[in-house]
């Protein structure tokens, strides 16, 4: 979006004109009166300068497009004036992904660009788990007088790097159930290969399903039915409540962002293994995507998860969530009998309560808990101890809990496996 506005800053010169002309006339001093001409010239300055133009092209490169968690990534942004007029005052703000802290340099720079001229901005971000998308850069251009301002967004050229993929290592995940993959059998007949039952022949039954041996033996026509194969369903349940939007340090992503990174990675792995995967988000609003498979479903699921990655929370959200929490869990239980993988930082009792309710409703449940506590403060230490107690409590109840420190792979230890 482009906005053009007048700053009207030179209107203040009229105050100088007013003072000098008044004093000049009153004191009958021609020199003071004529000094008003200087003020008038400055007041007319923005009217004499042409409107600034924004013909800019932007390209972006990074030192590593798939960095490891914690790696420094050098970003180089080059902006070129493709117009025919000089850009006197360009203020460029690169669209750094919101969860990546700039640790060296600045993503904001100013430049004066002649036609064909270019300027380069270099800065370093520290990679954090997740799929990070660079947003369009913002260019603020003033004319030489500063009287007119154009603000616009510039999208990087096609060949530029617009994403950073810092994936979570989930190769060693050993799941508690369905270790043979995402295919199970259903208690209904269908197109499978496992024997289910025999029944009397009905007109229209395929000939290859008729039990010919029995017919030869008894003269009765019977049809053999096989058990229908069914894909196992898993629901990735994200705890995106305001209380879970907590980070260990000010420049660190919060627990929900880490949960989204882990859930996105597991989503791909589970879909590849043949599972039907659904998404449930418990937060300010309940979001639900029923279990399914396929590329389109994968994209929908990723999009749903991404919308909760950088979502801010307010006090009003917190109050509303307390009332809605149980209702949202019941809404989840009404959506079939899929296994639940709960992503929660366990910073309050919600995670434990949710697991208990899942078990009570006959759901198999696994907990993946990103650690967003810190040892650096007294409050952080207290939160860490409380969280550790919750992890212990769940493990004592034979619930598999993956206590995940961001930066490490997600893995079930022997102690956490049932």
């Amino acid at each position, binding site marked *: 979006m482009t906005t053009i506005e007048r700053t009207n800053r030179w209107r203040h010169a009229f105050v100088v004109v007013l003072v000098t002309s008044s004093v000049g006339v009153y004191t009958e001093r021609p020199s003071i009166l*004529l000094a008003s001409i200087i003020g008038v010239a400055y007041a007319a300055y923005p009217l004499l300068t042409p409107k600034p133009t924004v013909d800019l092209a932007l390209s972006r490169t990074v030192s590593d497009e798939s960095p490891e968690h914690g790696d420094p990534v050098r970003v180089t942004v080059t902006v070129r004036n493709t117009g025919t007029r000089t850009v006197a005052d360009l*203020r460029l703000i690169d669209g750094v992904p919101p969860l990546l*802290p700039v640790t060296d340099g600045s993503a904001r720079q100013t430049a004066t660009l002649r036609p064909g001229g270019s300027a380069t901005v270099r800065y370093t971000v520290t990679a954090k788990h997740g799929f990070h998308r660079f947003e369009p850069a913002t260019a603020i251009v003033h004319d030489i007088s500063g009287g007119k301002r154009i603000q616009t967004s510039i999208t990087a050229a096609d060949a530029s790097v617009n994403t950073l993929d810092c994936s979570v290592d989930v190769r060693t995940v050993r799941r508690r159930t369905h270790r043979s993959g995402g295919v199970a059998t259903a208690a209904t007949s269908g197109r499978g290969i496992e024997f289910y039952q025999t029944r009397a022949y009905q007109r229209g039954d395929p000939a290859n399903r008729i039990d010919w041996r029995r017919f030869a033996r008894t003269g009765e026509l019977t049809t053999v039915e096989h058990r229908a194969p069914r894909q196992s369903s898993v629901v990735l349940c994200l705890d995106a409540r305001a209380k879970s939007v907590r980070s260990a340090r000010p420049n660190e992503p919060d627990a929900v962002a880490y949960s989204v990174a882990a859930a996105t990675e597991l989503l791909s792995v589970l879909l590849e293994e043949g599972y039907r995967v659904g998404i449930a988000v418990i937060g300010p609003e309940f979001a639900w995507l029923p279990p399914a498979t396929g590329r389109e479903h994968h994209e929908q699921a990723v999009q749903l998860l991404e919308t909760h990655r950088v979502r801010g929370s307010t006090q009003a959200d917190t109050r509303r969530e307390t009332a809605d929490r149980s209702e949202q869990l019941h809404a989840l239980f009404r959506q079939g009998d899929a296994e639940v993988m709960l992503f929660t930082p366990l910073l309050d009792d919600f995670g434990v309560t949710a697991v208990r309710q899942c078990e009570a409703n006959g759901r198999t449940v696994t907990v993946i808990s990103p650690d967003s506590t810190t040892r650096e403060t007294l409050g952080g230490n207290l939160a860490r101890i409380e969280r550790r107690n919750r992890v212990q409590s769940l493990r004592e109840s034979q619930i598999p809990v993956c206590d995940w420190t961001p930066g490490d792979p997600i893995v079930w230890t022997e102690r956490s496996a049932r």
Partner: protein
Amino acid sequence: MTNESRITRHPSHASGGIALLGAFCATGLSTSGQLQLTVVVLEAIGAFVLLGSSVARQQGKRASGLALLLAGSLLVSTALGLGAVFPVGPIERGALLGGLLGPVLVLLAVYPLRAPWSRLLAGLGTALLVCGVVVRGWLGPIGRIQLFGAVMLTILAWDAAERAITLGNHVGRGARTFVVSITHTVGSVAIGTVAIIVTIGTYRVAPETIPLGGAALLLGSIPVLLLSLYLSYLR
């Protein structure tokens, strides 16, 4: 959490320095006599020492920052004290004090203790400078070219201070802003210089023969010209 938390949204160094320089030059031009100029130079040194204390504090050198702060405050206070006691009449004393306080307020505007006060302090500092320059022009101790130059530099100081504030808001104090600041300043100085040449030319036409009322009428016609320019600009 965003990387925005790292941006220091204080006025930029380059334009801030230009604003200070403009303010002190304006005060220096409107002084009469060696002693008054010495007082202004003393205050300018104090102000730039205070500037150094700000830079030292940013670099984490707390002890040297504090020492520079004390030294700068002492110099500025001494200069203000001299400005308060040295001039003969109360009007001249007021004019010199206004001229000395103006740059101090500009300094506080571009290196603010509280960022929201920046614009207010820049405005107040400019107002004091304008008052000081006009009063000195009325009292007659300075030449007309000095007067025109001081008016131009006062406006230039205000312009640079405003630019320092907007640059700080947009790109933060840490960004490189030198080239942009210089480009703007060159433009503003060019306009001011042309205006001064026109003013001197107008003065040399023979101002004694032009009735003051007529000149006032001429000035009154200027808003009409500006209005027509503005209307064409809107189109």
